[in-house]
């Protein structure tokens, strides 16, 4: 509370982003967690709440005769343009918000003060909702080929990896430890996905410390062990998700990529996804295009092209498709890495999983996927999403790109996903909101130190409890387009601009009627009617005679109506 210089300002104007003629007048409040704008006109109490943790930047613009503009950009792409009549008040709000939106320590984060009406027992249960081990056993692990290794207990081998990891049965602790010493941040090759039908596996790691000529016997043995864990294949792919030039540059720093001559039976491949800095700048440029007041079609398309954003999305999807095909069609195992193996590697693993396995296209499956490839494998959420004050160069929309890849796939395959766009957007919001503990910190070890599971709530059980809002009424698990590997197109024309996310708050841009809401309503009604019908059936007893009787009863009850329908 000590950061709030001014808790309340009256007579504040909130401008509409599209048309500045439309403006609302009201009172602005600052609380410990939110900025609240309450519209005071027309008798309707219209409130806009913005979490401080969602605020990305606060800018005070030059004063105008009508007042002093304050521009708030949020991490969920909301943009609020206030006009505060007195410059001093604007100044106070500006300073307060700047401090409130940039917590200096984890303890200040919203999740530690967020206390919904849930008792402690239920809160603890929330954290049991997802179980990664259950996902591995769904894949058929452990098996005679893959085992759960205790080597990283207490995070001794790699402090950014999870404690529980699957490795090839033949990989001994000395081999793993040796390999980890030859990999950035100790992130040795470990299993991410296993296809029990053909034994092909997706493994992930960081880059090898190969420099210009260094070798590591244990690392070579580790890859050999992965290859041997797939009895049906005599080679494996090693996919470096970076552009070749970046990988070569890393060699000068004693890092780099695998030399095909030193590893037996590997096929090495670059896929050319750009680094976090390029992605950050690209999204920034794209958002500038989104914010143009009334752009012409050419302004928009030229801006979109020069931002390069869709090109990067396509690169991630292309890489995912390459890996999914290697696993599903060739039955070949793949090792994926980038530099540290927590950004591009996570993206590509997840995209490949979504393409490969229908389970990850369900509500629960997608939550498991994020928990597995991102939370557990140590994507640096707090750095990338700037949860606390830190190096701005660490911020990057890597996780946004995953969601967008999935969204692009949903647009191509409308019947293949159990969840809807709202689900992705809600998850996106909470990557940044810090309302739930799931994405606090940068890895499992940090979350344990912060006692996240003891002190906060979990997003996943919240989403599950509200799953009717997030269900795609067109999901058809048995439809031909839903089966097995999704054969996605990455022709440039297959990619669309995701206005649902990037222009989420510009309501005027979105379709005015929702097919999905309509379908959901008739789906519910259809279910109710079916239940009514079947309860009639049950009451009478499910014999042929009874069914005939029931038909007779229905005919009697609904008379002409029923006949007409026939």
């Amino acid at each position, binding site marked *: 509370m000590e950061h709030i210089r001014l808790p309340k300002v009256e007579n504040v104007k909130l401008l509409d982003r599209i048309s500045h003629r439309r403006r609302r007048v009201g009172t602005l409040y600052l609380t410990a967690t939110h900025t609240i704008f309450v519209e005071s006109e027309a008798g309707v109490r219209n409130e806009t709440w913005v979490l401080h943790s969602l605020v990305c930047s606060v800018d005070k613009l030059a004063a105008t005769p009508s007042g002093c503009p304050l521009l708030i950009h949020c991490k969920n792409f909301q943009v609020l343009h206030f006009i505060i009549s007195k410059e001093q008040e604007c100044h106070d709000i500006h300073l307060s918000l700047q401090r409130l939106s940039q917590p200096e320590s984890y303890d200040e984060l919203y999740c530690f003060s967020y206390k919904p009406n849930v008792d402690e027992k239920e809160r603890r249960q929330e954290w049991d909702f997802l179980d990664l081990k259950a996902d591995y056993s769904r894949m058929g692990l452990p098996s005679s080929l893959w085992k759960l290794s205790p080597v990283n207990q207490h995070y001794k081998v790699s402090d950014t990896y999870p404690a529980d990891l699957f490795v090839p049965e033949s990989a001994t602790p000395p081999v793993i430890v040796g390999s980890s010493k030859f990999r950035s941040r100790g992130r040795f090759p470990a299993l991410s996905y296993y296809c029990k039908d053909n034994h092909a596996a997706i493994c992930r790691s960081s880059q090898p410390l190969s420099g210009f000529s260094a070798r590591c016997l244990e690392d070579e043995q580790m890859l050999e062990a992965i290859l041997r864990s797939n009895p049906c294949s005599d080679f494996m792919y090693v996919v470096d998700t970076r552009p070749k030039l970046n990988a070569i540059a890393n060699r000068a720093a004693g890092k780099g990529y695998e030399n095909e001559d030193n590893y037996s039976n590997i096929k090495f491949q670059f896929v050319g996804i750009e680094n976090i800095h390029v992605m950050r700048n690209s999204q920034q440029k794209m958002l500038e295009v989104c914010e143009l007041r009334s752009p012409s079609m050419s302004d928009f*398309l030229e801006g979109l092209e020069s931002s390069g954003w869709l090109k990067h999305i396509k690169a991630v999807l292309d890489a995912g498709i390459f890996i999914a095909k290697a696993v599903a069609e060739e039955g070949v195992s793949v090792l994926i890495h980038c530099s540290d193996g927590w950004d591009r590697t996570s993206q590509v693993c997840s995209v490949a999983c979504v393409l490969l396995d229908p389970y990850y296209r369900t509500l629960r499956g997608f939550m498991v996927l994020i928990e597995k490839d991102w939370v557990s494998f140590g994507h640096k959420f707090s750095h990338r999403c700037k949860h606390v004050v830190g190096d701005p160069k660490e911020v990057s929309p890597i996780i946004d790109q995953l969601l967008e890849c999935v969204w692009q796939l949903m647009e191509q395959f409308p019947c293949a996903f159990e969840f809807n766009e709202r689900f992705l957007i809600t998850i996106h919001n909470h990557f940044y909101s810090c309302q739930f503990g799931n994405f606090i910190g940068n890895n499992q070890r940090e979350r344990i130190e912060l006692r996240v599971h003891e002190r906060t709530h979990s997003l996943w059980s919240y989403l599950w409890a509200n799953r009717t809002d997030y269900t795609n009424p067109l999901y058809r698990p048995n439809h031909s387009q839903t089966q097995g590997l999704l054969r996605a197109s990455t022709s*440039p024309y297959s990619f669309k*601009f995701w206005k649902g996310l990037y*222009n989420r708050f510009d309501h005027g*841009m979105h379709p*005015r009627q929702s097919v999905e809401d309509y379908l959901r309503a008739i789906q519910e*009604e259809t279910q109710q009617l079916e239940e009514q019908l079947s309860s009639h059936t049950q009451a009478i007893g499910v014999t042929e005679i009874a069914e005939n009787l029931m038909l007779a009863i229905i005919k009697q009850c*609904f008379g002409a*109506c*029923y006949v007409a329908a026939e």
Partner: protein
Amino acid sequence: MEFAEHIKTANVEDVVLRQPLQPPSRGTLCITGHHLLFSDREESDSRQVLLLLRNIDAIEKRMSGSSGTITMKCKDLRVLQLDIPGMEQCLNIAHSIETLSCLDCVSAMYPFFYRPVDLSLPEQWGLSSPEMHYSQMKELYEKWRLSTVNRDYSVCPSYPPAVIVPKSIDDDTLKKAAKFRQGGRFPVLCYYHKKNGMVIMRSSQPLLGANRKRCKEDELLLQAVIEGSDKGYIIDTRSMQQAQQARMTGGGFESKSFYDRWKRFHRQMERGKALQESLIKLVEACGDESNNMDRWLSKLENSKWLSHVQNALSTAGLLVECVERDGHSVLVHGSEGTDCSLLISTLAQLIMDPCCRTMEGFLGLLEREWIQARHPFQQRCAHSAYSHARLQQESPVFLLLLDCVWQLWRQFPLALGFSEALLLRLATEVYASDYGTFLCNSDQERCALEVKERTHCLFRALLRPTERDYYSNPLYERTELAIWPSVHPQSLQLWKGYFLRWTQQVRHLEEAQEEIRNMVIEWGKLARS
């Protein structure tokens, strides 16, 4: 017309046909006066392809050794390929296709020969007529009348015999006003807004010329339109500069001094050759196989097609704003008044009037605005995006309309009574059809060729129960409100269903539409039981 002279080889065996989304098949090829027929050799599950030669926009032939390959690019954007054994046969077939696909003689076209067994030639051709339309609009009787001044097409060759005009204006005045408008297209009523009694009028440009001629009768006619109101608006679909330049060639615009109660807006809309080139570029971009995102976005931008969509919708939005929000009557024209004027008045009616959003309503609207009020289909749709022929009068104005309607449907998926499938069907039929609806350039030409007696009408066929079922929108819920489209670039999309119609991806979207239809049917069954 003897077709046989163009057919040297009528049948070829052992031809391989390659078409999108299907495996190649081997069979017999047959050329007739109007069709290309291919039948599969497989006895079980035999497939036939029947293609109107008129649908073929361009062909390319490639000879290698004793056989040849003919690539046919169709006006519905399909690309088919035939591998034909025997060089001479191949050349003969190619020659037949080249000649028969672009015969100029209208009366030799297929609609005059199309006689399906389940359809007899209609008593009434078309859905309605200006007379019927007027008689059904009782609101008009007080201030508007039906004039038959054009009964022999002498006042305006491109207008139908009957038009709706202000009651206070007699036929002599109309005749004089017509002389002051290009092609005689004097201002006539095309839409009456029941909520406030305001109207949309449509015409061609006034013939001011360099020495600023005026015409009392034209001024009177327009004055009568806004009688009882303080002003009216004119939407000129050309830029101010273009309109001024038009004076050099005898045209012009309504000047403030003679039409002092009319306020003019200029909205430049692309037409003619530029629009055709835009379509060609877009189709070319969609066929680009370089798989390069930057290249695609820059080609998409460079084609300007989406800019034209944006422009058409926002100009129609302006028209609706004048009539619905501002409560004033509007006159729309460009130069000839046969292209962009029709485009925006049609869109405006769809946006404002729920009656135009049902399937009958929409087809009726197209009939009034495009068939009766004369869009020169024959000239505009002679060729599509693939043709190498030198461009003459081709311009995809009607296709642009369908694209805009598709954008409306995307933004208001429950408000239109028809589905995307209907728009696709119309987009195909307008270039090559079994029906006579899109033949000729005007009502006069249609009468001369007895189109109404000797061909079937597409719109009537589309309203038969089975077709109507197929083309209806299962989600349709009538709304009385205007459906204002958003014209932000983010809100407009490439019409994949048309431009990428023959790709796998569009199949997935069609399957989803099918699922939607099934859900609604299922629900309907239960709700009724």
